[in-house]
């Protein structure tokens, strides 16, 4: 019943709907992923992953002697609907935990609701950082777990001296490119050597942009492309890249949003050698991964592939199960307290640890695209702790998040004050 106390003053009326909550002897898991609309392409897979994990856990006997029950809703890629559905999950369905969201804007839409009602959500996608909510655990990569290491790889291993940052025009590419620009400048790359371009969602006419990138090579510096191009638009981009004969040895492209699923939509034989940076690839060699891929293919069909956000859900789910067992209850505050420091194996042979800033430790993998649409992992770091507030932008360098000891997600280390408890945006 702490759940009730922790909510705002409206709890009085909420408690009237709560008896159902107490009487249930299943643990309800809300799945908040778009099953229709533009994002269904990515999010449906995550819904299926959750259902598979829940079935597997139930086969093992559930949690705390209770069965898990999935409550699937469809926010239909409609951002306001995410908030509405989240409220419905928490108040009408009384779920104990939510696994959901993909785009940043959907997460921003859900945040105020989930903080108001003191819910618990696991967010599985790599994102732009600059956020740390008390009620959200971020199991995807923060910029320092994907973008920065990939840029380091470009600088150190490939000797890239000139950067083209291509992205779809929305907040993740914008913020990531901002961070990268200031990071590259700090690494001695001149501002003139950074070319930035933003394209709309689903952009298909790439000839001019690819020509612009090739022309960057004219001053004798090695050019590299960092792509935060999202979803379908990648297909046109890579087709144009292949048509222009841009070899990965001349102009390497590293993508942050291209995984096994996206490559299934095109012929990769002309793209061999281009790169992607993730925390997981299907080709990762570990026993747990082999099992996971096998179970997935058995359930969904041989043609289906696994990808990074799926691994994030696997980690998040296992952590939640472990934390609930440790807490002996599904009460949000009790579970949250047990989450810190919890460790579960990831699928790449290492361990993921939950940090007090609600982010994970994750290894950074860099893979080269192969002709069969899979990635050849050519670089794997040790686990990197996720940083909620990037060190490479002046405004956020002074901020840190520590929910365990400071109880604050946005703590200014300059003035030693907590800027805000609730993350409003």
């Amino acid at each position, binding site marked *: 019943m702490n759940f009730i106390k922790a909510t*705002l*003053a*409206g*709890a009085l*009326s*909420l408690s*009237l*709907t709560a008896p159902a909550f107490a009487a249930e002897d299943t643990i309800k898991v809300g799945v908040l992923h778009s*099953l*229709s609309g533009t994002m269904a392409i990515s999010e449906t897979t995550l819904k299926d992953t959750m259902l598979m994990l829940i079935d597997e856990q139930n086969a093992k006997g559930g949690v705390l002697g209770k069965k898990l029950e999935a409550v*699937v*809703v*469809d926010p*239909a890629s*409609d*951002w*306001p*609907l995410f*908030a*509405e*559905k989240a*409220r*419905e999950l928490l*108040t*009408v369905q009384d779920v104990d935990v939510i696994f959901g969201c993909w785009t*940043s*804007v959907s997460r*921003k*839409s859900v*945040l*105020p*609701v989930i903080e*108001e009602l003191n819910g618990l959500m696991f967010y599985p996608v790599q994102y*732009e950082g*600059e*956020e740390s909510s008390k009620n959200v655990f971020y199991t995807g990569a923060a910029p320092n777990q994907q973008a920065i290491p990939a840029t380091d790889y470009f600088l150190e291993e490939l000797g890239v001296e000139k950067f083209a940052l291509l992205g779809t*025009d*929305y*907040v993740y590419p*914008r*913020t990531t*490119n*901002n961070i990268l620009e200031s990071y590259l400048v700090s690494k001695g790359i001149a501002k003139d050597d950074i070319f930035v371009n*933003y394209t*709309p969602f689903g952009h298909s006419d790439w000839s001019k942009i690819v020509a612009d990138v090739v022309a960057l090579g004219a001053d004798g510096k090695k050019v590299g492309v960092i792509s935060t191009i999202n979803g379908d638009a990648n297909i046109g981009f890579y087709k144009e890249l292949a048509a222009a004969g841009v070899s990965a040895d001349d102009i390497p492209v590293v993508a942050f949003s291209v995984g096994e699923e996206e490559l299934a939509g095109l012929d990769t034989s002309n793209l061999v050698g281009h790169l992607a940076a993730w925390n997981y690839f299907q080709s990762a060699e570990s026993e747990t991964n082999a099992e996971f891929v096998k179970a997935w293919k058995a359930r969904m069909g041989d043609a289906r592939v696994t990808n990074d956000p799926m691994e994030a859900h696997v980690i998040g789910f296992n952590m939640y199960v472990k934390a609930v067992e440790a807490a002996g209850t599904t009460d949000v505050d009790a579970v949250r307290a047990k989450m810190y420091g919890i460790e579960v194996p990831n699928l790449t042979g290492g361990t993921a640890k939950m940090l007090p800033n609600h982010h994970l430790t994750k290894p950074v993998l860099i893979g080269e695209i192969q002709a069969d649409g899979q990635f050849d992992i050519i670089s794997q770091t040790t686990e990197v702790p996720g940083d909620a507030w990037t060190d490479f932008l002046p*405004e*956020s360098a002074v901020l840190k998040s520590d929910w365990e000891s400071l109880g604050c997600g946005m703590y*200014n280390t300059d*003035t030693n*004050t*907590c*800027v*805000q408890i609730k993350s*409003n*945006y």
Partner: protein
Amino acid sequence: MKNTFLMRNPSVLIFLGVLALFTLSVTLLSEATGAALISTSFVKTLGKTLCLCLIAIAMDLVWGYCGILSLGHFAFFGLGGYMVGMWLMYERTRGIVETSLAQAQIPPTPQEVVDAIGTQIFGVVGSSDFPLVWAFADSLPIQLALVVLVPGLLALVFGWLAFRSRVTGVYLSILTQAMTLALSLYLFQNDSGLRGNNGLSGLQNLPGLDEVPQSVVSIWFFWVSALALGLGYVLAAWVVSGKFGSVIRGIRDDEQRVRFLGYSVEGYKLFIFVLTAMIAGVAGALYYPQAGIINPAEIAPIASIYLAVWVAIGGRGRLYGAVIGAALVSLVSTWFTGGQAPDVPLGFYTIKWVDWWQVLLGGSFVLVTLFAPKGIGGLFDLAQGIVAPRRHGQALGPGQGALQEKEAQE
């Protein structure tokens, strides 16, 4: 005067009565003020539905009465939402920033406060300066005025240009669609100063009212939405009654003849276009604080086409038809996509409504257009025994003016 107006339009009284009854029953069943049989999220859904009904009335005015099929009214709806969202975001952030800065030893300068608000709002989209469009964000009265002024001005400029050059029919529809597409693409850019794809979020939290629970806030907004809908309905009914209404209906049926009769067709159309844009702006300003977030995807062309769909299904040319259409389709849509609708097992295939709802919607829309051009509103005619007189025999002949009908009788 008012009496005669109400006497001539009994449907207005009936509508207001039904709306009042509905508002009262929701109030009595809600969590904050009643028996808690309706959850807060559903109160919000109902409140939003009322706002959609309001914009549907605007759409009915402009399309059903004036014959302008605007496929861009959600642009005005969205603009209204943005205007009120700016104030909500600015004020709430100012509260947070001032509390935070008050903890420091040195009191902040006003400029520092504004800078900190800017960093908070725009930090996430990689900027920290206030763009020009936020100039009045700190003033509630100005922003509220902008809720009607900005959509009104856009409609005025666009309508003046379009009607002046006699763009009509489907051309105008495509042009309005282009307008809303351009606006949404513009707002998608981060440089537009309205936070790009992220839009304005956290709008459900009212500044200074942190202690008021959402269950209460939601019922407040529900009341205001119901009030706005009631007023909007009366206003629309008043506009379409009397001589003015006859003229705009005349424009719908034959623009040329009305023009030859000496009426300034462009002026009438412009008035209706601007008025409905303002109503749409008000509806949007009430809708988005309940939705919690507004972003450019809201004003993509598809939204405006759906608006036309609602009105057509409900029944054009009658205000209650628009309201019924908007309420029914949006609520049924919520029900189907919410996963509550039971699956239909067919043995070889199971129909999941999440997958098939759109097909059903599209199909039923075709059927309504083909077989029930009056929409659901036509049922009321049927109940009252009103049968439209058959005025022409086009089904027989290849076009107007053909003599086949006459020949067939002979």
